[in-house]
């Protein structure tokens, strides 16, 4: 190895972003190979709108977020397949993807259900490229999931490299970008600034006024200037585009400042008990999330909403904010606040479409010290109780142990008429393999009741 090469061999971390292609659709296809090559869409909670599309569905120019009922005709005509979201399946496959990466890479940071950062160090560019290709092949073979890999010196460039790997066939799913290369410059010049990681539509509009239209324009800005005129976050993004790492995943994963759990009812309801049982479940889930991130909440907000699109019905979008006497992560305290909030805002003669609970004004549980001014908490053993509750629910499945029993047929239970089987989490819903052609069909016909 020559001297020049040595000078260049300071420890450089290459950041890879592994991002599954159309993750929800791909999960469906692993266990339902008949969906391969077909236009497939996955619908949001309650079968509301389209949240994931296969390439074939995109080619039909069906946009993201279109209400599912508008596609009902196409579905009936069997020209497209629509699936209810199957979060148990997606969550399990995501866990497998993460574990596979952990087995193969020194460090992994999951960023979302279908995007994971991996960190490689001490490798030459050619080796990084080879690792990327090997990961992509292995995930495809071992899990059945198609992914693209973007590799670059910073998170922001890795995101960009991943985008290129997805959109440009010549990369064959793996794109390694060097911060200083002509290739990177060309990509940055083509990319609208609004598509850079962390830059929203509003910010893009403000940048356009300053004649910053592409990612390249932003990269060329003086970062002190950006910091002064916009924010430190934008200045960091510009530096990241130049190849200087400024973001760490710890910053990305900062505990959330508020926790919201809300959901539409399967059908609208005016019944107070119904509304309360939905709120109660949201409250319990929120408190669980709160303990997961080791925070305490100082206030609980309850909100309800009627159906905006039914102008013939009385409209009502109330919310109630209940401050807590002392910061808490106790489910019982949150539930009491929710009951109080519901009493404040509930009115009969309205049909509610949605209910939610938000925990806000969060503080870090470790940093929060019980000062002498505060009253001691009422339930003295609550940390052990809550930890036991969370532990049981983690082991036995969500909502196994809960406060107050909700009626089975409550109207707010999810509508999921088109959900496929939960192939990896339920013994009764496993994928079937026939011992000969036609075996599965013959078996299904035997089970059918006689006409």
């Amino acid at each position, binding site marked *: 190895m020559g001297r020049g090469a040595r000078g260049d061999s300071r420890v450089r971390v290459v950041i890879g972003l592994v991002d599954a292609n159309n993750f929800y659709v791909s999960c469906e296809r692993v266990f339902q190979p008949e969906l391969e090559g077909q236009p497939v869409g996955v619908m949001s909670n309650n079968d509301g709108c389209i949240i994931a599309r296969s390439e074939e569905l995109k080619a039909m120019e069906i946009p993201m977020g279109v209400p599912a009922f508008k596609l009902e005709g196409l579905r009936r005509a069997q020209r497209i397949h629509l699936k209810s979201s199957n979060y148990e399946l997606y969550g399990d496959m995501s866990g497998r993807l993460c574990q596979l990466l952990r087995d193969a890479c020194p460090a992994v940071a999951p960023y979302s259900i279908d995007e994971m950062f991996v960190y490689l160090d001490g490798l030459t560019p050619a080796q990084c490229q080879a690792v990327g290709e090997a990961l992509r092949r292995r995930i495809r073979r071992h899990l059945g999931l198609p992914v693209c890999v973007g590799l670059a010196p910073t998170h922001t460039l890795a995101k960009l490299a991943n985008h290129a790997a997805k959109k440009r066939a010549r990369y064959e799913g793996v794109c390694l970008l060097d911060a200083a290369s002509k290739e990177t410059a060309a990509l940055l010049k083509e990319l609208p600034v609004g598509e850079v990681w962390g830059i929203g539509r509003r910010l893009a509009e403000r940048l356009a006024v300053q004649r910053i239209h592409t990612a390249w324009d932003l990269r060329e800005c003086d970062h002190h200037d950006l910091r002064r005129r916009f924010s430190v976050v934008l200045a960091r993004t510009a530096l990241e585009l130049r190849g200087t790492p400024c973001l760490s995943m710890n910053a990305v*994963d900062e505990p959330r400042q508020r926790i919201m759990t809300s959901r539409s009812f399967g059908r609208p309801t005016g019944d107070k008990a119904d509304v309360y049982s939905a709120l109660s479940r949201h409250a319990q889930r929120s408190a669980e999330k709160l303990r997961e991130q080791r925070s305490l909440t100082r206030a609980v907000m309850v909100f309800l909403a009627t159906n905006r699109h039914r102008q013939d019905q009385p409209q009502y979008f109330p919310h109630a904010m209940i401050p807590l006497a002392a910061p808490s992560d106790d489910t019982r305290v949150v539930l009491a606040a929710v009951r109080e909030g519901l009493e404040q805002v509930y009115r009969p003669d309205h049909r509610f479409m949605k209910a939610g609970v938000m925990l806000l004004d969060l503080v870090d549980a470790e940093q929060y010290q019980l000062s002498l001014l505060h009253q001691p908490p009422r339930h003295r053993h609550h940390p052990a109780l809550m930890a036991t509750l969370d532990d049981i629910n983690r082991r036995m499945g969500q909502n196994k142990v809960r406060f107050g029993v909700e009626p089975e047929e409550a109207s707010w239970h999810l509508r999921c008429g088109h959900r496929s089987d939960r192939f*990896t*989490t339920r013994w009764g819903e496993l*994928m*079937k*393999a*026939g*011992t000969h*052609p036609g075996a599965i069909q013959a078996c299904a016909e035997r089970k059918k009741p006689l006409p």
Partner: protein
Amino acid sequence: MPSQPAHVATAWPLTFQPLAFPALYARAGFSGFPSPAQDYEQRTLDLNTRLIKNPTQTFYLTAIGDSMEGWGIFHDDLLVVDRSIQPRLGHILVALFDGEVLIKRYALYQGTPHLCSAHPLYPPLPLSGTECQLWGVVRAVIHEYVS
């Protein structure tokens, strides 16, 4: 390099979870005599570690049909399928054949690789010139006699 934050740990596959029953901490009652087995305490046998070598890549399937009975796979049996195994002749595979999910034995027939069943009614399916895709290799079959 950022450390892996604890609170973003994703769900572990079921097979990673500790067994529901605890290790044996044998004691000969409360009388105070230590158990002679104390120094030999071991975790009790776990079928997961025997049947599942690669939990991340292992999936369970249900067998449907009777034409693999000759190789010990009966209708409704539980298949432990490992997708990380490189298939070899003699393995039992889950494969996609003509849009169907099939279990077959990967074997030579008249000198070329075929997907074979154990039933005279279903002749071996040739691999060359067909759209056949490997899904996974069957590592074990579980047949429950009492349910």
